[in-house]
Each structure stands twice: as structure tokens, then as C-alpha cells.
């Protein structure tokens, strides 16, 4: 027995409301992030991640209030990503009750920001989000690159080298999303997950592509991920976090029940 593999439901929040739809059998208004977070907490989620997709920076204050409300009712770790660009952004989210912040695009454009953030607040609260896409052709050795703008813009940066650099700069955890798999429901890019997990010594959260519970098992067993993140399979009431953990446990994965 030892450290459990984590299951992390992820909520996209736009202007204070959960989007992409969340349905629970006995909750009518599932767009309230506080209600959704509480429900996942009751189901045994190990952490909760909020992705702030609010377009206007004027509305970002709304996210601070969401975090404040969730943090006063849910006592598991909370991560907030999306729009984290300055030390002040991090300070506000941590003060509101977030335990970690996810830095994505800002890290690509200004890697020193990750260093500065880790020095100021400690690596334990700095998650660097990597959006990676396969760029090698069939028959070539695997190669993945970092993409920005939702997977549309290539950066020319090698994903494995980038993951190593970010941990050298102080990232305490890597949130790895396969842009090839995101939204496909055919499972994680396991080769990518394993390559990144083997390359760095910090925990790696696999994301992108989960469509069924076996995919979570695969991410951990074959992809060697330390945690798995999923959105839609939990949102639409298809599966509960509890069911996911049972499946993982049956497959020999250590989980917190």
C-alpha cells in the first residue's frame, strides 16, 4: 500500500458558470460551480480543477468569488487554470483558497514566469499545463510539439524537452493534454503520457480523450500517469467518480476509497 493514484474532475467555468453542461440525477441547476464541486467531493474526487475560460479579463473577478465559495465548502485540493499570467493573478487565486494554479500559455511566452512563481509561492502550487500534439509522421520516431491557442498554433517546442525545462524551472506538477485526443473520447495518448512521465520526476496528470472508465486505468497503468483528469464522462452523469475508482481498484490500481 502507498500513494493513491488521483482522479481529478475538471470544470470549465465561463463567467462564473460551469459550461459544457453538467448533469446530476438529483440536481436541476448543475451550472453552479459550487454545487458541482460539492457533488464531486461527495463522490470521492481527489482534487478538483477549474479551468477559467472567461474571455474578458473584466470578468475574471468572478472566478475569484467562485474559488472563495468552493474553498469554504470543499476540503480537498483545488487547482485553478486559465488566464494565469502574472504573480498578482496567482496571489489572488491562492488567497481566494486555491491550492495550486495552472500556468499554460504564459509559460510558453515567458518561461521565466514559472521560475518566478515557483520561487515566490513554492513548486507545490505551480502546475504547468502542456498542450501537446504529435508532429512525427508514420514510420518516424514519435515526436510531440507544444501547441497554443487550443491546439491551433505550433510553437516548434519539443514537448519532452519542454516538460524537463519546466520542472527545472520549478513546476511541481505537469498537466499534460493531448490535443490530438482532446474531445475524441478514444482514450489518452498513452505513448505521449508515458514519454513525459518517464522524462520528469514530478507527478504527471494525464488529460484529453477519456470516453470510458478503462481509459483512466490505461492512463495510469500504461501511461504511468500519477493522476488522471476528466471532464465530460463525469459531467453527463455517465459515470460517477466512485465508479471510476472501483474500476481502477479492480484493475490493481491503488486508489483512495
Amino acid at each position, binding site marked *: 500500500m502507498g*500513494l493513491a493514484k*488521483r482522479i481529478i474532475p475538471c470544470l470549465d467555468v465561463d463567467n462564473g458558470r460551469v459550461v459544457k453542461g453538467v448533469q446530476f440525477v438529483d440536481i436541476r441547476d448543475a451550472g453552479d460551480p459550487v454545487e458541482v464541486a460539492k457533488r464531486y467531493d461527495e463522490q470521492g474526487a481527489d482534487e478538483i480543477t477549474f479551468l477559467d475560460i472567461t474571455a474578458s479579463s473584466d470578468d475574471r473577478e468572478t472566478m475569484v468569488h467562485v474559488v472563495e465559495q468552493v474553498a*469554504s465548502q470543499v*476540503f480537498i485540493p483545488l487547482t485553478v487554470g486559465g488566464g494565469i499570467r502574472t504573480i498578482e493573478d496567482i496571489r489572488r487565486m491562492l488567497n481566494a483558497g486555491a491550492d495550486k494554479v495552472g500556468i499554460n500559455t504564459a509559460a510558453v511566452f515567458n518561461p521565466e514566469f514559472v521560475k518566478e512563481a515557483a520561487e515566490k*509561492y513554492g513548486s507545490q502550487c505551480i502546475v504547468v499545463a502542456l498542450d501537446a500534439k504529435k508532429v512525427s509522421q508514420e514510420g518516424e520516431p514519435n515526436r510531440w510539439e507544444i501547441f497554443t491557442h487550443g491546439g491551433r498554433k505550433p510553437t516548434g517546442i519539443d514537448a519532452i524537452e519542454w516538460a524537463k525545462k519546466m520542472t527545472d524551472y520549478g513546476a511541481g506538477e505537469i498537466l499534460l493534454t493531448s490535443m490530438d485526443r482532446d474531445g475524441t473520447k478514444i482514450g489518452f495518448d498513452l505513448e505521449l503520457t508515458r514519454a513525459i512521465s518517464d522524462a520528469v520526476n514530478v507527478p504527471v496528470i494525464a488529460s484529453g480523450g477519456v470516453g470510458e472508465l478503462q481509459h483512466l486505468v490505461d492512463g495510469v497503468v500504461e501511461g504511468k500517469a500519477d493522476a488522471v483528469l476528466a471532464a465530460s464522462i463525469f459531467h453527463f452523469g455517465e459515470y460517477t467518480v466512485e465508479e471510476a475508482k472501483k474500476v481502477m481498484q479492480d484493475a490493481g490500481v491503488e486508489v483512495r476509497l
Partner: protein
Amino acid sequence: MSSIAIIDYGMGNLHSAAKAVARAVEDTKVFITNHPDEILAADRVVFPGVGAIRDCMSGLHETELVEVIGQVSKQKPFLAICVGMQALMERSEENNGIDCLGMFRGEVKLFSDSMRDEVHDEKLKVPHMGWNQVEQKLDHPLWANIPDRSRFYFVHSYYVDALDSDVIAGATDYGVQFTASIAKDNIFAVQFHPEKSHKAGLQLLSNFAHWNGAF
């Protein structure tokens, strides 16, 4: 109404701890403070800690709270969390070696970067992050209503190696078996984060709020 002071010595985010303590206990005034008078006047004291030990120790010296901590830990129930627990030891390996408060014998050491889980054939990542089991080594009021080997949330790269086995209240395995909790007289210290550890964590905080020290 009884009161719990959460010591603020410039280590940032104490809101999680304050909210969880407030949630776990009723009829208790929970407040964050760096004033020695307020800390000395509280019924119970929480000594949290996040970040690096060097900043933690310099924060304590700058706010002139070292003496206050020595005093209150003898007088009233005192709960140290995470880096707060590490600060109670003699010395930490972090930041090229930092002298700590020396209230317990032993050092704070860095997890090796070559640890492996042989059963699952995988490397053990550092930081040690997530939910791990705590084996209760002492019968203590703060473990009341918490099943042995319950999981708590950890996030740390350095661990306490206490020299005196009679003060070890909890132990956890992660490549090595390390000291997850220490207890002596009025002091209870934990490496994990009870404020982030769901029901088991809230139960521990509630037990603390009802504990009158010693055991």
C-alpha cells in the same frame, strides 16, 4: 467562546487552513494573526507552513515569533502543519542546510530522486503529492474517530526523520518510512494537510479543537 489562533509569519496562503478549522469546529473563534499578544491569548494555536524552510525560518525571525512559539507550545494545544512540523526539528537539508527550532531531535531530509515502487514497477515521483496512508503509532486524542491507515493529502519534497521513536505518532511509506506525525505533551504535528484531507482531515481538526493538551 474558545479561540484558535493561526500564526501568520508571512508564508502566504493561510485561508485554506482557517476555513477548514472554522468548518470543523463550532462555537470557536478562528483568526489569523502575527501579534504575539493575540497568539498568547488564544486557547489553541495552529502553526502552518508552506514553501521553503529558509523563508519559513526567516519569516519567524523577522516577525520575532520564535520565542512566542516556544512559549505557547508548552502552555496550550499546539498543532503544526507541513513545513510548520519540519520547522520543529533540529535542522533541514533544504536550501543547503537550515537550522530549525530544535524542539524535536532529528533532521528534515530530501526524498531520493531514484526511489522505485517495485510492486507496480514505476518510479516514485518527488514531490510526494497526493493521498497516502498514515499508520497511527500512538494512541492519541487527535486520532479519535479516525481509522488507522486513513489517507491524508500530502505535498512535500522533504520529510521528517525523527530520532526519538516515542514521539512518532504517525508513519507513512513512500520509498522510505518517514515520520508523518509527531506528538509530545501539548504539541501535535503533521506532515500532511488536514485542511485538505476531506473527512479524516476535518475530524483531526475537530479533535484538536476539543483537545486540552497532553495525552
